[in-house]
């Protein structure tokens, strides 16, 4: 009774085709994620478009720095907001929910005039579009200054700094939240439903008459829902970034959660469908398990914004750890806590998977 990749893939192929051919499958895989993010994004994001706000701290005071600031100001893509010289710049940035800023060092003018090398510092989040604008414009102006410089030597440089602020926009939380929502709902509803209809139509009996194993069957479902969750992630990220200016850091850490989330929820859906013996009770138990997670795990609102007692509940819901982890890697680039989240999810997923395979009977006694 070994594991056969060929059988698993054959099962995956049949299941994938079925989902793509069914209107509901198509809707929930491709259309629903977009609707979700558009809806919640539109409701909660007070969208402010227009020029990117860039904080600038001028520690110099000489003529060259003024000229430099004038050049920056003349571009319409950014709006300069001066920061008092007595402020700690990075703290100031984060307290204003921004990552984008420029610091002109002390002695900038005199160094430039003396034809010595000097750097302006640009702060930004390398993955956000606004920061890209800031870095781009700063470099351009620096180049222009260097050409105008007496010797033509490249005496002004740009040193780039990554700034990650601790205040984020709602949309930034919404993307990981809704990706988690998709990872929860699609497999849960599908598997609870499958476990009762397949039993009613005796499809499990048919499958048990073939060499396909329960592990292969369940694995194919996990792979399918990793696929749909990844599609949701991509669609939601695109809409989030382009429609609402979400800040998303793309990295491999995200992939861990796109894998382990569906792994868990497919297993859980099967377990729920298996232990409840009638289709009706499966649906009820399925909803009992799904709904609290749907609303209390940080899907639509950051958990940190919830009252303490609800936060306590959130911490026992597995979806919380998926969304928490995704938020950590997608927004903060904070891998330490994310590894904890993913590790925890892996353990409970493995246990749930084992239980589902163990209790899931496709024959009758």
């Amino acid at each position, binding site marked *: *009774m070994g594991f056969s990749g*060929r*059988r698993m893939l*054959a*099962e995956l*192929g*049949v299941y994938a*085709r*079925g989902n793509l*051919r*069914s209107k509901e499958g198509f809707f929930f895989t491709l259309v629903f994620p977009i609707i979700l993010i558009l809806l919640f994004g539109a409701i909660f994001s007070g969208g402010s478009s227009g020029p990117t706000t860039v904080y600038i701290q001028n520690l110099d005071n000489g003529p060259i720095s003024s000229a430099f600031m004038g050049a920056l100001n003349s571009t319409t893509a950014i709006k300069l907001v001066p920061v008092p010289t007595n402020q700690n710049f990075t703290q100031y940035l984060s307290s204003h929910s921004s990552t984008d800023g420029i610091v002109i060092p002390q002695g900038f003018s005199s160094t430039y005039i003396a034809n010595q090398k000097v750097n302006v510092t640009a702060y930004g989040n390398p993955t956000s579009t606004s920061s890209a604008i800031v870095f781009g414009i700063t470099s351009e102006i620096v180049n222009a200054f260097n050409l105008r410089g007496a010797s033509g030597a490249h005496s002004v440089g740009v040193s780039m700094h990554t700034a990650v602020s601790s205040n984020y926009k709602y949309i930034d939380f919404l993307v990981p939240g809704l990706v988690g929502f998709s990872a929860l709902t699609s497999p849960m509803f599908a598997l609870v439903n499958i476990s009762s209809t397949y039993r009613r*139509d*005796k*499809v499990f*009996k*048919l499958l*048990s*008459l*073939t*060499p*396909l194993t329960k592990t292969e069957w369940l694995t194919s479902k996990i792979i399918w829902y990793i696929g749909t969750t990844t599609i949701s992630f991509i669609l939601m990220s695109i809409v989030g970034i382009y429609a609402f200016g979400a800040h998303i850091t793309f990295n491999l850490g995200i992939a861990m959660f796109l894998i382990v989330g569906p792994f868990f929820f497919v297993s859980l859906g099967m377990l729920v469908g298996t232990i409840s013996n009638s289709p009706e009770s499966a649906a009820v138990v399925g909803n009992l398990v799904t709904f609290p997670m749907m609303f209390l795990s940080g899907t639509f609102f950051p958990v940190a914004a919830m009252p303490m007692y609800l936060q306590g509940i959130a911490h026992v819901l597995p979806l919380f750890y998926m969304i928490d982890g995704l938020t950590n890697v997608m927004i903060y680039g904070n891998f330490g806590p994310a590894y904890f989240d993913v590790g925890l999810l892996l353990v409970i997923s493995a246990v749930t998977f084992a239980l589902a395979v163990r209790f899931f009977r496709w*024959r*009758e*006694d």
Partner: protein
Amino acid sequence: MPAIEVEGLKKNYGELQAVDGISFSVEKGEVFSLLGPNGAGKTTTIEILEGLRQKGGGTTTVLDMDPWSKGYDLHKRIGVIPQGFKFLDYPTPREAIVYYGVLFGKKVDPDELLRRVILEDAANIWFQHLSGGQKQKLGMALSLVNDPEVVFLDEPTTGLDPQARRAVWEVIRKLKTEGRTVMLTTHYLEEAEELADRVAIMDHGKIVAMGTTEEIESKYGSGQRMIVKSKGDLLKYLKENTKLEVEGEGGSVTIILRDKADAFVALGAIQESGVDWGDLTIRRDSLEDVFLKLVGEEGRSEKEGA
């Protein structure tokens, strides 16, 4: 070594004794048919043999294996159509066959198999859109993908039109010529007569008769009978003037022919009676007559009351 051996098989669902200590065996290459009214226990029996249900008692061996505990190995060597075969909604018959081929690790030619069950025309239609008979034919095709030694067919022709039924019969005959063992349940007695080497009639979880159809007909049937239609009271005349065993209802009289002489006595007496008569036939009890006799109306109403 028989392909299927069943000894004292029992299965109950709570109070209900669905299978009540039945024994039979099916030789390799034999076509064996289970007959019986609704709820007799046919599906329960066949599913136990397929390893889909656990037995309550007794012993069962299929191809030398215990179907429940050795199900995984057994399933590679048997083919099954469950009663009321259903499949996933979206695969087409061709895709379904290819899928089964991969699952069983067998090279299959989907077109050949589709032709065999006369399903070529619907090869690319989603299962959910197939007609009832086409679905059943796909079930037949899938049960053959793994080149099975024993094929279990639970009411394979229920709901099929006469043509399709005959096509399935052809498939079953071919299975027999290929040396496969077939266990078949059906409600159509002619089907059992056409196909089965031996039949077992089941009722209330028990086997009430078993053997070749001829054996059953001669053992439980009433032998030859002469049936005469008449307008006058022929029944009364025969009862009063001959020693013949007669029964009748309406305008039809049935004379049991215990031996050949009875036929001459009967003809003579009918002529002498002066009653207007016609439509004389001689027939034997068919399997259907025996079936109805063995699982009579009384048995059925008792069942419904239960």
